């Protein structure tokens, strides 16, 4: 470790220090997660159970028999439970213990605190998506992905959106217990309208329009498009054409990242209400 940024290259010094700070916080958060049986169960068993349950439903939007459907479902479920819900409870617990206030008195920036707290959940979520991808290839005979960049972009953008939504949601969450209720709107709307249990066309037109504006719908759309080259309308595309098909989804996700960031800046509280 260099003692001063002068001895390291310009830029890498500050960036390296920032990564080191977040890493230190992330390690502590991972330890805390390991010592919380309920959170562990939620992080590891929950997504698997949800994927099996959604796969068992008679008619699903994402074809349960396809590897891509499983990957999309796993992405959605882990983003909601392991990234979003888990982060809301962790942030609220730290806030109520005055940990966030204490952290802000140190050298960590706000964004670094948020990223450090979110990191273990993100890692677990992505690990499970990777397992789902492997299962897709090995068990369900999934072919080579049409555009892996879209899959990765969908997962990354979805992670960013749900981390920011978690930060904003802490404002409506006075206690860890309340997180079960306060996270419901995002979780339920994302699951029901996200195109997973039901294809979008089962809904009346206004709901379809709404669904297309929601981040989760667009994340699962990107993942499936990138894996199979099949659009939500059922058309097959290949190569660079997939980027064209993905443009509206990407646009919606960028919009949600901006909205989520504004919500986080506007509403997130770092100290308990007195």
């Amino acid at each position, binding site marked *: 470790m260099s003692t001063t940024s002068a001895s390291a290259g310009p830029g890498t010094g500050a960036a390296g220090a920032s990564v080191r700070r977040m890493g230190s*916080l992330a390690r*502590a958060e991972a330890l805390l997660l390991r*010592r919380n049986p309920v959170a562990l169960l939620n992080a590891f068993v929950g997504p698997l159970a949800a994927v099996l349950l959604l796969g068992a439903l008679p008619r699903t939007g994402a074809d349960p028999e396809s590897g891509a459907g499983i990957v999309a479902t796993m992405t959605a479920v882990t983003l909601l439970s392991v990234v979003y819900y888990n982060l809301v409870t962790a942030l609220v617990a730290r806030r109520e213990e005055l940990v966030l206030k*204490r952290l802000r008195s140190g*050298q960590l920036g706000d964004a670094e605190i948020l990223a450090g707290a979110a990191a273990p959940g993100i890692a677990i979520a992505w690990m499970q998506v990777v397992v789902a991808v492997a299962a897709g290839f090995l068990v369900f005979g999934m072919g080579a992905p049409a555009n892996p960049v879209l899959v990765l972009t969908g997962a990354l953008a979805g992670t960013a959106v749900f981390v920011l939504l978690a930060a904003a949601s802490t404002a409506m969450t006075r206690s860890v217990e309340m997180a079960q209720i306060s996270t419901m709107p995002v979780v339920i709307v994302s699951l029901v309208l996200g195109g997973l249990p039901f294809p979008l066309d089962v809904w009346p037109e206004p709901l379809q329009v709404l669904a297309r504006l929601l981040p989760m719908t667009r994340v699962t759309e990107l993942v499936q498009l990138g894996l199979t080259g099949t659009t939500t309308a059922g058309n097959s595309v290949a190569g660079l054409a997939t980027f064209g098909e993905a443009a509206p989804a990407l646009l919606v996700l960028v919009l949600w990242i901006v909205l989520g960031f504004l919500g986080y800046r506007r509403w997130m509280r770092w100290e308990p209400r007195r």
Partner: protein
Amino acid sequence: MDDICHCPSVRRSPEPMRSASAHRRSWLDAEGMDDKGMDNNGIVEVRDLRRRFSGRGTRGFEAVRGVSFSVRRGELYALLGTNGAGKTSTLEVIEGLAPPTSGTVRVFGHDPFRARRAVRPRIGIMLQEGGFPADLTVTETVRMWAGTLSRPRPVDQVLDLVGLLHRARVGVKRLSGGERRRLDMAIAVLGDPEVLFLDEPSAGLDPESRQRTRQLVRDLLEGGTTVLLTTHDLQEAEQLADRLAIMHRGLIVRSGTPAEVAGSQPARVSFAWDPGGTASLPELPGGVVEASQPGTVVLRTETLQRTLRALLDWAGRHDVTLRDLVARPASLEQAFLAIAEGEVAAVPSGDSGRLAA
């Protein structure tokens, strides 16, 4: 990593406080300028600081109502006051945890709230309430913090400094209140700060760890650290502070050295005598009888020597025996209590600056 620790880690036998602080003053005089050629005055500068909390339905509550002071490099400056006097609200702004409602605060010449990145690596903060995850051990907590600092000291060394080494593997939730304060202290000194902010550092400590904390603060001062602390422990302020300010209802009502602040209150003379004789107590110059029961008298005086001489002359002339004769200058405690009881009008004094209307 070998140049980071310039503060002594070994405890030495306690030396008389005054000599320690005199030593530091001479060090200050010798090192009139710091390494950047800046004037040593005002490593922390507070001017006309106001802080208002918005309340629901009301116009809010102004916790700090125009406070000015400066802390010099290497000194210990104490903010004293009753609960709710505005000490912590003031400190939080200086630490950069909150912006001022109005007024300016500078630490190393920077705005501590806006220039957080420039200021934070050079300061250490001990908040009034810990804020550590209950499910981490002491070592895990300190290690996590060390990972966020630019120049952390070794974890074990810091735990040894605060006397928590034997509790290193214990979970934070199993620590006593005093041990948590010491963990907070460990975090505050972990980055080897130039300026240390301590909010009620010895509150809730048993006498032994209180002594230990004070010794640690003295050692840090010896090593050149500047300390700004809040306390309502008057003995602590008297022992440690080079200068102090007493806050009351959001204002600084007295400031100066502990001796100066104590000297703002009248001295007291008390004695018992037998009033049955022919002599009766005369008017004593400067003396005001505060309490007089048959046979015991307490006098208050701004001119202790004159009053006492007149008293002794009178006793000598009339052959009166003064039993339990005590004459003593006012203590910091008296000054403090006088303010707490509202005897002192809340006006700026010393370097506390001007007040907006």
